[in-house]
């Protein structure tokens, strides 16, 4: 278990940033969620606090044993993950047209897809660390890809395109760190992107007659997902639905100006013009009420947070630890880019929360599990000198 000697290795800067981020989350939630349940303005702050407290316990647990132990459980974790994702189809409850939840109590449930991200990171790190130096050929890419594809497809089926893409991004990030041939990785990436682009183009564009057969080609996407892509290109195309969300989010952030409108004084937030303002669009609340100063401070904290994670990877004892760490870094970076970018109107609308800040239990627990793991890896870095 933990020894006093090991504890001395704790990254206090990371701890400080974490405390600031979690405290910030509660502060932001206290204004962002105050008009959701009018009978108890602090209802969601309390629940989020509970998620954090339990999440911290999970993190401590995750940090307490030698992470090498996880390698032995790798296939077990992978199996449980797949089982949970399959279970969603049988026992899941739906929210907004998608079945993502496994009910635990009457009002609370867990979102296996959130934990799937962590499970994929832990198991893929083990999978890749065994293939280090053997990832130079295209055919070497196939096995790891299929390894991630299985859970990704299950999640896509829910449907949850955002989280499925997160898994792919984690895969790419970890492959790169694991030493996959960068040129070939890029080529694959470009190829995949081009394929998706062409498919979308064929779906939407007015085609010349010789290409008519491809018109309206079916895509593995739901109508609302296509709509989100449409309004991302042109928010005014749908001013009542997703386009409306993007426009209101931009207005909220822009109207905040340098200093913001003040705590609990944002009209866009408090009068409900801003949608989902305590979950996916929480960054816009920061922008409206705390202004440029607030948003830049938050981004700065997140940047420090990520740079500390990379520092952990650099100092990791072995490649398994480094891969896990960089998987988590990929996860957080992509979440921040997509979530913040969405509120700023430079990314399409997806249901991806802002890590550590957005309200949500499963996401908080998953993130805390990941962070616990990071501390674990950091505590047990290179052999200590006496």
């Amino acid at each position, binding site marked *: 278990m933990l020894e006093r000697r090991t504890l001395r290795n704790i990254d206090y800067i990371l701890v400080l940033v974490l405390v600031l981020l979690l405290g910030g989350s509660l502060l932001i939630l206290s204004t962002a969620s105050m008009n959701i349940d009018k009978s108890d303005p602090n209802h969601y702050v309390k629940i989020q606090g509970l998620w954090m407290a339990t999440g911290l316990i999970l993190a401590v647990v995750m940090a307490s044993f030698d992470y090498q132990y996880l390698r032995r459980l790798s296939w077990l974790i992978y199996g449980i993950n797949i089982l949970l994702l399959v279970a969603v189809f049988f026992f899941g409850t739906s929210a907004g047209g998608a079945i993502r939840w496994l009910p635990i109590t009457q009002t609370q449930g867990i979102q296996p897809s959130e934990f799937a991200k962590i499970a994929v990171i832990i198991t893929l790190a083990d999978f890749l660390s065994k293939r280090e130096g053997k990832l130079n050929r295209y055919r070497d890419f196939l096995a790891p890809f299929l390894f991630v594809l299985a859970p990704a497809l299950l999640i896509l089926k829910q449907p949850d395109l955002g989280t499925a893409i997160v898994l792919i991004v984690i895969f790419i990030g970890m492959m790169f760190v694991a030493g996959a041939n960068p040129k070939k990785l890029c080529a694959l990436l470009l190829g995949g992107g081009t394929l998706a682009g062409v498919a979308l183009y064929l779906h939407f564009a007015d085609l010349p007659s010789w290409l008519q057969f491809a018109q309206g080609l079916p895509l593995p996407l739901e109508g609302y997902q296509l709509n989100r892509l449409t309004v991302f290109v042109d928010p005014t195309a749908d001013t009542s639905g997703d386009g409306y969300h993007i426009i209101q989010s931009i207005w909220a952030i*822009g109207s905040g100006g340098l200093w913001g409108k003040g705590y609990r004084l944002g009209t866009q937030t408090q009068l409900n013009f801003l949608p989902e303002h305590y979950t996916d669009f929480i960054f816009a609340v920061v922008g409206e009420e705390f202004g440029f100063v607030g948003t830049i401070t938050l981004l700065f904290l*997140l940047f420090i947070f990520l740079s500390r994670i990379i520092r952990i990877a650099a100092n990791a004892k072995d490649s398994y630890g480094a891969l896990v760490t960089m998987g988590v870094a990929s996860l957080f*970076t992509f979440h921040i880019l997509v979530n913040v970018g969405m509120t700023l109107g430079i990314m399409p609308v997806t249901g991806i929360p802002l890590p550590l800040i957005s309200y949500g239990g499963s996401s908080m627990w998953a993130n805390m599990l990941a962070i616990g793991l990071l501390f674990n890896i950091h505590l047990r870095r290179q052999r200590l000198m006496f």
Partner: protein
Amino acid sequence: MEEKERGIFVRRLWYFSFVIGVVFLILGARLWWLQIARAAVYAAKAEGNVTRFVELTPTRGDIIDANGTLMVTSIPQFSLTLDWLDLQQSKDYKEVVYKLAGHVKPFWPNVNESVDLIYEDILAFIQNNQWERYRPVSILSGTPAEMLPLRAIVAEHQNELPGVSVEAVPLRSYALDGLAGQVLGYVREISEQEIEQFNGKEEVRAEGLKYLQGDLVGKMGVEKTYDLYLRGQKGVQQIEVDNNARPIRKTTIQAAQPGKTLQLTIDANLQAVIEASLDEQIKKVRETYPEASTGAAVVIEVNTGKILAMVSRPAMNPNDLIGIISEETAYQYFQVKSAATFNRALTGTYPPGSTYKMITAMAGLQSKVITPEETIYDAISSLGSLAAQQQGFAEWGNQTFESVNLYKGLAMSSNIYFQVVGRRVFEAAPELMKQLSNEFGLGILSGVDLPGEAKGIAPSAEWKKENYTPMYQQLREEQLEEIEARYAAQLEQAPDEQTAQKLETQRANEIKRVESEYQQNVADNIDWHLYDSFNVSVGQGYNLYTPLQLAQYVATIVNGGRHYRPYVADKLLDPVSGEVVLRNEPQILNTVSVSPDILAIVKKGMSEVTSVGGTAAWLFGDVPQFSGGGKTGTAQIGSKGTITENLFNGMFVAFAPYDNPQIAFAGVVEYGGHGGESSGYVAKAAFKEYFGWK
């Protein structure tokens, strides 16, 4: 890990860090763009999201009479309203609406509608107004009598009816049952044309006001003239709304300023007496002429020009012109020949008949073609040659008053006497009659503070020429042009010289014919004739004046020759403090050129009319207090040979008392025959009321 291996690994981490850096730079740059560079734009957009402005309607100013009696006010009309915000507070707003439907059933316009249907109707109404939820929606409105019971019910069940209230909205009410309706006017929604018209006014621009679509505006009478002051100033309320347009906060940015109180020069009691008396006279006339329905009367203060009463019949009750107007009402008020909205005292022009004879008298005296004492024998032969006699009027009923001087001429209303005098005046100074008429306010616009006054006609040779020449000239030119055009075409196609010659001759003949026709027209219709002189001298012919002008004319005779601008609005008062904001002062438009001596002679002549031997001597027989004078008129409506030849309007003008006269009267009763026997009674009633005689 090996050292070398770690080196490669760390390099990959640097690449990774680079990607993260780029991500954060992009996000930061975008934040700078939205929150710094374009902050103002988005601040305005967000502001527009939540802000709605609601107009606060000011209460329109009251109108009171000279004694302070309330004539027009704004009374509350009650409106059943639903406030969405409050309604939302209840657990199930549909249940509230259902309960409301039950309570409202006895008051619902459609008596047979079931509670369920009323419920559906109200829900549909809420749905239709969903984007105006920030303000209460009116569901039903009515008079206090209709709505007060409902208000009590709503108050009683307030607990189960959140958001439901019965509120008052001001509605124009003409308190004295339409007394002086045409003077007061009425208020309705502004038309496209009127928006331009009102906004073009200098006072409106000076006050910084703007008339907008949907505004109510005075359409006639003082409601129109003084609309600017009566309407008050709109207030503005800012309402903060949420994304469902529900009101969150209300702030009054500018409170509505109530309109000013307008005090008229009209004496409501006097007005009422005259209205009743005129109605009585019209009723009397109707026994003989069932189609008779019109009449008018004016009383003005001779030393100020204040209009103390102004009556026009048929009566107009402005209360009838509020809200939806039935076809029947529209016909009666606007379309029929005897339209009630037509203010005959102001806009109606009438031949003055014998009431014009004072002008003839003054013109004769001023041009010295007669002295007051000179007598003329009252026989048709006095008019001159047989040809002249044929052009003149005989005495009424071919009676004779024998030797007639000026006083007797006025007293007996001798047509022969005034035709003789008039002929002399027109021969000595052709324009004098018109000039004097204008000096006394006849045939010119008075500048009264009421919209729509008529100018009337004070004729003269000059006037006749100016008025009719263009018409006949145009006719001549058109005919000549037509001839030229016709022959030009024919000449072009003429086969030989001979035919052309023939056409030329024909053309010359036609032109000659047109020219001679024109000369005939000039002689008949443009040149001044003796019969014109005769007609004008006794107030017939082209003479046309409004009752207001006739009253002014009498006032100017008896006040020593000062022609005042008539006015109906005395002052504007602040509705709260009662302070005078604006006051109309008496304004002398001109002083007449007639000498005071001549005015005194004519005034004396007018008093002879109401004294023993005068045409209206009997009228004031039972009122010994009366001193003053008058003049009767029995004005032929049509010219000889028309159907209206034997129809006469009863005209009467008068003043009182004789020494230091106070008021002047002018009245007309359609088909009233002898003026003294119709309008005269109205004058008598007016004087009795004004001076308090029993």
